[in-house]
């Protein structure tokens, strides 16, 4: 009797929790849902409501009947938007590659090769994670102008790579430390040098850690706004966040919301794909601070 009671209570709590979890999820993702459904909505519903709202509006946006792809076509046929999109892809991809290279070598050094000051370097690198980005604005702007890479994708890549270092360095270092040193010792006895052991033995075993580094560096570079705002001034080198934001402010009074949501959806797509690819490992990296807020 008691046993049955308890079991039913637990089942009850679980069902209640599942319902509560569903409610929370709806509250969290309804803006994302609206972004997609707004992008698929008929353009009329954003125009006819100018005078005063009628009851159909909300339902029409929630469940576009029929969903139309016109706004996505509008966005993608815009040469400027395509330019921004390609620039973002270039910057994010090169940042990702560069961050992997720099952080793999650095993390291996910190994990295995003891030298004076290695602890301090690791700690300072971690501390840079909390530096306010506005603190870097003026000197970085001066450097970028002084070196002659102002208004270029290079300036963005170099900055974003640095921002990706603290987290990636610490994550990869922990990853390397979890591998037994005997692996390299064996390879080195067989005649491979340190670097040979790193590339042929350690790296193939570290794919999950390196993949996480890659994903987080990509997201960081894809989403960054402030330095793209300061460093770039011509449309040729603008990335999506700046490009789209400027287009919106230019239109200010007459923003075409359906098209804006289509642009937002396309801009979010690579990130959604990255999250789906990452799954469990991604969540673990995220809780460790992989993406800054």
């Amino acid at each position, binding site marked *: 009797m008691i046993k049955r009671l308890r079991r039913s209570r637990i089942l009850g709590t679980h069902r209640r929790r599942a319902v509560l979890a569903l409610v929370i999820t709806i509250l*969290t993702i309804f803006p994302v849902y609206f972004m997609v459904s*707004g992008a698929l909505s008929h353009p009329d519903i954003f125009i006819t409501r100018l005078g005063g709202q009628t009851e159909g509006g909300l339902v029409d946006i929630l469940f576009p009947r029929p969903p139309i792809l016109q706004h996505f076509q509008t966005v993608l046929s815009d040469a400027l938007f395509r330019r921004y999109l390609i620039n973002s892809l270039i910057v994010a991809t090169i940042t990702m590659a560069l961050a992997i290279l720099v952080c793999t070598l650095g993390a291996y050094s910190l994990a295995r*090769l003891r030298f004076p000051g290695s602890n301090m370097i690791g700690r300072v690198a971690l501390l840079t994670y909390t530096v306010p980005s506005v603190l870097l604005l003026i000197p970085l702007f001066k450097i970028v102008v002084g070196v002659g890479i102002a208004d270029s994708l290079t300036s963005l890549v170099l900055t974003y790579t640095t921002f990706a270092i603290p987290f990636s360095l610490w994550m990869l270092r922990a990853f390397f430390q979890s591998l037994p040193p005997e692996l390299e010792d064996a390879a080195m006895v067989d005649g491979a040098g340190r670097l040979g052991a790193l590339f042929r033995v350690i790296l193939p075993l570290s794919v999950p850690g390196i993949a996480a580094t890659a994903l987080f560096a990509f997201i960081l570079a894809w989403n960054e*706004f402030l330095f793209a705002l300061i460093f770039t001034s011509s449309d040729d080198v603008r990335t999506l966040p700046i490009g789209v934001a400027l287009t919106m402010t230019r239109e200010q009074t007459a923003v075409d919301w359906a098209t804006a949501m289509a642009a937002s959806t396309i801009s979010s797509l690579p990130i959604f794909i990255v999250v789906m690819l990452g799954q469990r490992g991604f969540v673990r990296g995220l809780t460790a601070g992989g993406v800054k807020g």
Partner: protein
Amino acid sequence: MGVRLSLRRREQLLGLALIAPTVIFIGAVVIYPVAATLGLSFFSENLLRPERGTQFIGIDNFARIFRDDLFWMGLKNTVVLTAAAVIGEVVLGMIVALTLNAPFRGRGVIRTLNILPWVVPSFVAAFIWIWLFHPQFGPINQFLVWSGIVDQGIPWISQGSTAMGSVIVVYIWKGLPWTFLVLLAGLQSIPEEWYEAAKVDGASPWQQFRYITLPSLRYILVIVIVLRTIWTFNNFDLVYLLTGGGPARATVTLPLNVYSTAFLQYDFGLSAAIAAFMVVVVLGLSIVVLKLSRIETES
């Protein structure tokens, strides 16, 4: 013996060579700029008055910002935004984490969906919410009008009385996923037996939370609070894109002050002083993080 020593030397040199790119990047892009900004905060440098050049003026910049109403406005708004957002995120994050810390079907999917606000680019987040808040076309106002709660759409982010509250809602929405994921990871590390034992002793759910869950999450909670505080305090893009600091400076924050002073008024010295003030605050918080994380790893 001599051979072994030189091997050690070689390892050290290789170590330095491998860490060199990291050091160069961080040195050039973070360490030097931080030092340069701190130094610049004691100089006057205004691009609109190039004939004056860069002059050492001691603490005049700080004296100026402390007399400036806009600075105090920014400081007040930054503190209000940060405090409200972090409290909201932690309280809600705890509720969500406790809810999701139970096995039910579809938990993985629900967790993945809940991450989305955190990873979505801030300009996308800002545009979605500007639209959601829109007085005429925004779904929030359409719902409020349709349900008869209000007669006319509320201009959430463009009127002074509701702007800051609305910005806080967006910050909580964006920050909640990270907070609850970290707390959830913490919850999952508490041994189930402790709760079993407490139940046997007749502890109520609240007592279990108060005497098992909260103490076990103590360090994680502190780290979550401090990190979210630092990140929100420093954040520029979300509020810049949502309101640009308006209306009538109702949502202007310190990062926005730093940006506009430097790149709209071209007063680099003054901007550096505001940034230097911010870093003092952030540095204090960072030291707390490091201390605590060391305590945690030692225990």
